[in-house]
């Protein structure tokens, strides 16, 4: 029997607001334990939460970007459970009335078709703190710096049919979050987390199978691995005559397998109810319009524009728009007049490689966009050759000097003057009489040898076009 997997993902993304969702403590990562705390996020007696407006606006941005309907009135609810890193004994989240519902995103499949994935809902909530267990002693510590850091949870429909689709969906969601500048989307640092609901069913069956929830999948690689493992496991349970049970399973990174964490019976009853400390969140049309207007161009739209306006291939457009900063860099480059295709090649080639080697992102590039554009213009203006440009580029990366300065300091200006080049060619021909004979006898392949000799003699500065033309004349 053939089985098909049915996958839905719950993504938690930290919002990068300056302050927490219900108090004015800093959200900055990496501070000494319990230094970014106040009575409100510590859950002390008598204190009250006040909603950070910025969090609402960030959630609205994501809602617009994923084509959701935004609720004119939504509510915060309390999710009740006991844990030492949850100081109030409840997490403020949204339950019955989330801020946004009924959206979708399109993902690209390997066969270059698109698939639409439904977004069930987006809601806002506060993060919990962190428990730190001492491996040497039976002691645990609690760090509440993270308590109250704003999150949005993005819940997909069970529309994903393979681990690869799940991966593509996650990358799409992360790309949108980053485009909107609302989240770092960093899975390893925990600012982007994912739980997966997965079931399998015989191909063609419409009824869903029993699902398992997978937790602790903290990298893109693990998401696909854990899902692939879980699909195999569920299929073997069914084909072995057993039944999949509804449970929560944890991905074990070391052993590459999922293990049961708790069954349906042990599932928490979170006793959700509307938080009486917070009034219903009302979003009027004016606020919605203002946020909508502030949205940047989204990746799909930008990709389409790059293809139509700049005549780029789909491949180039995909690569350039995958990251907003790269796309911004590219647009800044061509704004100064450099040719689009040359810019695209250099950004994805030399620049990407150089940044990669130095562990830098494009917004930390030692060569700003306009400086790269000026270098590329030196090529198109025949001031230097493409080959010399690479040398200049290396120098620019190291020193940050402008291309023009480097070219002048090192005397790298391309020689296009015919008489100067002719003199060099005469010398080369005089020094290599045998090769001239052989060429004239029909060994036309030797043209490369002559060009090479001229280039060596001019230290690569001779204009290759002019060299070719004069050589052809003189040798014939």
């Amino acid at each position, binding site marked *: 029997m053939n089985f098909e997997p049915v996958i839905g993902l719950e993504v938690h993304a930290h919002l990068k607001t300056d302050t927490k969702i219900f108090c004015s403590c800093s959200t900055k990562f990496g501070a000494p334990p319990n230094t970014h705390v106040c009575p409100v996020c510590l859950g002390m*007696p008598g204190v009250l939460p006040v909603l950070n407006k910025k969090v609402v606006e960030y959630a609205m941005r994501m809602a617009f970007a994923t084509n959701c309907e935004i609720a004119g009135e939504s509510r915060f609810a309390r999710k009740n459970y*006991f844990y030492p890193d949850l100081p109030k004994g409840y997490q403020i989240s949204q339950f019955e009335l989330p801020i946004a519902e009924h959206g979708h995103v399109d993902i690209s499949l390997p066969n270059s078709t698109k698939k639409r994935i439904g977004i069930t809902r987006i809601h806002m909530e506060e993060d919990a703190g962190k428990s730190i267990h001492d491996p040497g002693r039976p002691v645990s510590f*609690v760090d509440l710096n993270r308590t109250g850091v704003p999150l949005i949870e993005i819940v997909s429909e069970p529309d994903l049919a393979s681990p690869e689709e799940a991966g593509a969906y996650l990358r799409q969601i992360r790309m949108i979050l980053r485009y909107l500048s609302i989240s770092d989307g960093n899975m390893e640092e925990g600012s982007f987390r994912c739980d997966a609901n997965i079931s399998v069913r015989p191909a063609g069956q419409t009824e869903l199978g029993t699902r398992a929830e997978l937790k602790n999948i903290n990298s893109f690689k693990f998401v696909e691995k854990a899902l692939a493992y879980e699909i195999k496991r569920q299929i073997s349970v069914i084909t072995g005559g057993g039944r999949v049970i509804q449970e929560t399973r944890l991905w074990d990174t070391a052993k590459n397998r999922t293990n049961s964490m708790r069954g349906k019976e042990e599932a928490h009853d979170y*006793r*959700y109810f509307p938080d009486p400390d917070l009034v219903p969140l009302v979003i009027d049309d004016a606020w919605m319009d203002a946020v909508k207007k502030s949205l940047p161009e989204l990746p799909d739209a930008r990709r389409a524009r790059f293809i139509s306006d700049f005549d780029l291939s789909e491949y180039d457009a995909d690569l350039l728009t995958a990251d907003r900063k790269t796309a911004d860099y590219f647009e800044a480059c061509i704004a100064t007049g450099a040719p689009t295709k040359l810019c695209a090649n250099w950004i994805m080639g030399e620049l990407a490689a150089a940044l990669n080697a130095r562990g830098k992102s494009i917004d930390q590039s030692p060569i700003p966009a306009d400086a790269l554009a000026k270098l590329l213009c030196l090529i198109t203006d025949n001031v230097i050759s493409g080959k010399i440009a690479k040398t200049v580029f290396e120098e620019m990366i190291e020193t940050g000097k402008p291309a023009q300065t480097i070219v002048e300091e090192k005397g790298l200006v391309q020689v296009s003057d015919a008489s100067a080049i002719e003199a060099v060619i005469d010398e080369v021909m005089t020094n290599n009489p045998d090769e001239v004979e052989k060429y004239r006898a029909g060994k036309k392949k030797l043209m490369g040898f002559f060009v090479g000799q001229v280039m060596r003699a001019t230290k690569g500065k001779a204009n290759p076009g002019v060299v070719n033309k004069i050589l052809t004349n003189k040798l014939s």
Partner: protein
Amino acid sequence: MQLYELTIHEARDLLEKKEISALELTESVLARIDAVDDKTDAYLTVTADTARARAKAADKAIAGGTAGPLAGIPLAIKDLICTRGVRTTCASKILSDFVPPYDAAVMERLSTAGAVMVGKVNMDEFAMGSSTENSAFKNTKNPWDLTRVPGGSSGGSAAAVVADMCLGALGSDTGGSIRQPASHCGVVGLKPTYGRVSRFGLVAYASSLDQIGPLAKDVTDAAILSGVISGYDRRDSTSADRPVPDYGAALAGDVTGRTIGIPEEYFNSKGIDPDVRAAVENAISALKDAGAKCIDISLPHTPYAVAAYYLIAPAEASSNLARYDGVKYGFRDMSATALSDMYTASRSAGFGPEVQRRIILGTYALSAGYYDAYYKKASQVRTLIINDFKNAFKKCDVIAGPVAPTPAFSLGEKTQDPLTMYLSDIFTLSANLAGIPGLSVPCGFSKSGLPIGLQLMGNYFDEAILFDTALCVERAMGIAHKRPRL
């Protein structure tokens, strides 16, 4: 006359005229506490030193002409209002050592107004109760009869006011916790409109119902205190951003042309004591005589208020009290070795039986499979009760009725029967569920000499009309000056 016998407005006049000093006044009140509190047990903490310092500061301010409206006035504060640097226990073992590093919003307002806190007063643990017998520390006695309860949960506040151990007090009212003890002790108590007073720093019992309010020796004092503590606070999202009228200035005691609604459901209740009925009807007649028009109205969903309240309030409480888990502050059972055992042991030993009862009740009401039948249904009933009042206030300006079905009952009389205890709030719960203001003003005494209060309820933010109507009652009854002999 002793200085501690003064009302706030009397003391204010004397302080302004510099006939007395704030320090003298505070010393008088502190001496009174020393003299009689071993009989009433109203105070949990007396802050004599800081009170003297504050009083001296008030004297300076008065001398310098910069005195606030409560400069030098000694007040008692219910022990679930956070006071920076002063133990705030909520009358619970679980918070017996809790010293807040912040002041409640009302404390900031009192402080700005120049008030002098003389101490923190007893209550039912976490404001859960109607007799102050649920305090983990001691039973407060009714100053009129030391074998009886002062009411609750703000029993310490009411007893301290009527025993002249302060000039006024703050309490909190979630289901009647200001009005019922005010009635039982013979003082004026107001539960303001929900949102009128900031809840920031009020330790939560049931967040959608809790409201801080004054307990005072007379209506004028209650109006003065209300004016100081009311107003918008951005730290409380449920706080109302609208101006606060000058309640004191609006007082005339003139009810001519005012329509008083008499809800039949508050009088056909079987449990209503004949003395209470007589005193309340007498007060209503007095209002009529003073020119008010009385009409019969109906609040048809009144019989469901107790059930709705005892689902909503415990549900919220079960969540609000989850933070007392032994992890961060407060009581922890050190014998437990596993986390879940520590939770169970700390909470079982830290909370008293009534608090545990309500946590269990509320947890159950919110549980999967029961939420719709209990919490949600109760919320729907709450909407119907709100509509009852909206309809009623189309026909009348004020609703008048009893505060409690009986005068103060005996210590221990109802402690074994929580349901009977819950029914003592039957007439006060509705105002909390609806969020409207409610006031208790003394209107008579029972045959055995126990005070009885008249309850006045008004439309949202109509506190001024309540004070004015209550002043008319106060003048007509002529009993505001009466004090128990201690």
